[in-house]
């Protein structure tokens, strides 16, 4: 029995019909495919006004840009004088070879191809008399405009962020990396969603084995749809039995580009306003875009502070519980007196108090996140300040516990990655419970279990604790904690197995 229940014996395969539409390509086949679809449109046209030269135009409304269909497809078919003089076969050849004004016009070979082109926003021109069809790219590009990266703000850095349109996102990358080495490979994932997923990497810099592994994992994804980040993350990551993230999600094109330059691989998904970066070891989740823009000494200071805050948020409640319950001698006399005075008249056990407050903190945080902007802030303030101080005054919790939990919670916000914060929150609770069972011994054992768990994780072959516990015996450049100035960071990280480690003269 695994943590996800009993393993099931391989049963029936996920039924898959190949091809999806076996009928020959014709108007009736497309109408059957789109039966009961109010947004499917077909229109019979006469080329150059000649009723013998019949063409059927098919499109899915909302997916096409109407102006493009009118100007690039309908107008030339109606007004091109040359079409009147040509036989139907000649008209087909002329339209396929430049008579239409679209960027892309290609012949359709099968009903499947035509159906999926329609779903992608294309227009299909059927030539019933010839049994042929053309696909014209007329997809709409309606999208949210590029805005600020709200989840990853940075001073002295670019202000654009990824949007839900895949092509816009690849263009944001291309504008920064104007290199012919930038590869953008596309894979369609999801039987029903048919979501384009792009793999970005720099040829000659990224490890080909990593790229091949990403390709393999994407190719092996056989699911109904990729609608959110979790779908992709859970299929691409190495292990599922861990709360720790194994892919870095970023809203920032500049951050993705920096990682591509260091030899990592990026994954962009149509419909998601984030990019995934891999391989991603623990240290990557503790870096922020701001680190690169700050003075290197300031950056080192902030990074050290961030690591200290990570330890604080993980261990502070557990250490408090241990000290108060098992090792009061650790607490200096004046502080011990304060703790005793604060604990007086509080009816709950210390462990219960701490766990209850940790959970309350999570509840307030969730409530603040789920509510829109100002309302969320109000709930956080109301929950945090008013309820917190009222609970202390009512002697439901002791002020010391409130301070410990609040300090641990606030310290957790210094971790730049929300995915890592989630894992840390789970482990904080585990460590606190371990402290309640066996004091410092429990904390030590749970801490050792945490380190052991982290040491067992990998992200696309890169040990999760790189470069702290696994430097693969090679020189580490661009250290995780003590960053050296950029002019002296001449090599890409060894762990990424880049084919070209030197990044500057």
């Amino acid at each position, binding site marked *: *029995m695994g943590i996800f*229940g*009993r393993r099931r014996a391989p049963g029936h395969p996920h039924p898959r019909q190949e091809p999806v539409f076996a009928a020959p390509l014709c108007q009736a086949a497309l109408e059957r495919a789109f039966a009961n679809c109010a947004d499917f449109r077909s229109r019979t046209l006469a080329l150059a006004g000649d009723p013998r030269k019949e063409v059927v135009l098919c499109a899915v409304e909302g997916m096409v840009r109407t102006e493009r269909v009118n100007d690039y497809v309908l107008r030339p078919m109606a007004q091109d004088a040359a079409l009147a003089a040509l036989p139907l076969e000649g008209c087909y050849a002329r339209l396929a070879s430049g008579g239409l004004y679209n960027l892309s016009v290609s012949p359709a070979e099968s009903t499947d191809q035509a159906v999926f082109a329609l779903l992608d926003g294309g227009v299909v021109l059927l030539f019933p008399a010839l049994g042929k069809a053309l696909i014209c790219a007329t997809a709409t590009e309606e999208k949210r405009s590029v805005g600020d990266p709200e989840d990853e703000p940075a001073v002295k850095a670019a202000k654009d962020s990824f949007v839900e349109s895949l092509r816009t996102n690849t263009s944001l990358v291309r504008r920064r990396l104007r290199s012919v080495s930038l590869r953008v490979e596309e894979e369609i994932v999801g039987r029903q969603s048919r979501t384009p997923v792009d793999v970005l990497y720099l040829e000659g810099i990224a490890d080909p084995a990593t790229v091949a592994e990403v390709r393999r994992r994407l190719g092996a994804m056989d699911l109904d749809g990729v609608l959110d980040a979790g779908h992709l993350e859970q299929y691409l990551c190495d292990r599922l039995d861990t709360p720790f993230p194994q892919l870095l999600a970023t809203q920032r094109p500049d951050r993705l580009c920096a990682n591509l330059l260091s030899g990592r691989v990026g994954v962009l998904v149509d419909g998601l306003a984030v990019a995934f970066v891999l391989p991603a070891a623990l240290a990557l989740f503790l870096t922020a875009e701001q680190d690169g823009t700050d003075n290197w000494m300031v950056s080192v200071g902030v990074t050290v502070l961030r690591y200290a805050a990570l330890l604080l948020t993980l261990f502070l409640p557990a250490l408090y*519980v*241990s000290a*108060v*319950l*098992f090792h*009061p*001698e650790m607490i200096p*006399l004046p502080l*011990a*007196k304060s*703790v*005793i005075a604060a*604990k*007086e008249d*509080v009816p709950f*056990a*210390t*462990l*219960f108090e701490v*766990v209850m407050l940790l959970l309350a903190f999570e509840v307030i945080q969730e409530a603040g996140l789920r509510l829109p902007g100002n309302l969320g802030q109000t709930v956080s303030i109301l929950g945090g300040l008013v309820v917190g101080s009222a609970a202390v005054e009512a002697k439901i919790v002791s002020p010391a516990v409130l301070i410990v939990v609040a300090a641990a919670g606030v310290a957790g916000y210094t971790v730049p990655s929300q995915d890592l914060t989630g894992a840390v929150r789970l482990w904080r609770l585990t460590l606190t*419970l371990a402290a*309640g*069972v*066996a*004091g410092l011994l429990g904390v030590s054992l749970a801490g050792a279990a945490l380190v052991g768990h982290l040491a067992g994780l990998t992200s696309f072959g890169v040990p999760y604790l790189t470069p702290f516990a696994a430097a693969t015996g090679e020189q580490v450049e661009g250290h995780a904690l003590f960053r050296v100035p950029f002019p002296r960071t001449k090599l890409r990280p060894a762990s990424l197995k880049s084919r070209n480690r030197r990044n500057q003269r």
Partner: protein
Amino acid sequence: MRGRGRGPLALLALAVSLVVLGRGAGGRELSNVTLAQALGVDGPGPVTLTAAGEEEDRAMWERADGPDLARAREELGRRGTTRLELTHVAQLILGPETPVGETLWRELTNRDSGCTSTVWLSQGPAGDLLTGAEEPCRRLRTLEEDGPVRAPTLLEAARTLAETGRVTLPVLALTGAELRVVGVRTVEEG
């Protein structure tokens, strides 16, 4: 068969519940506690322990007897309306009859004792010093910081005794209601 394999999960849930409710935890709550700050030890056996502390800024003391140091400690913990914690004892006063080497060693190896508490000798019974003095804990802190003779810590005293076979300790006496250092005495092992 659907329930098979859920036993470990149920046990885990039970353990977590017990811990959260405080039934499974082996720790002691720091509530309804008085912290003893000075401890007087009299006699080779039976042993009389006198603990002094401050409760809401008032001096308090408790006394307990036992056939040996460990039993006397247990007995002392049960005295009074609040639990007496000996984890923050900062001054250890040994009476004239107390076997110094053995007591130092037992205190040093005791889980609840800190090895940084200072060690003193008393001219009369150590318990009488603590019960007869006015604000003994505060006075002992003053003597520790600004007294005429520096008192060694428990660790220093035990180490010196083990290495050299002798240790010099300051001697306390009661003058009226005030504790004073009246000299030093060298104690030899055995």
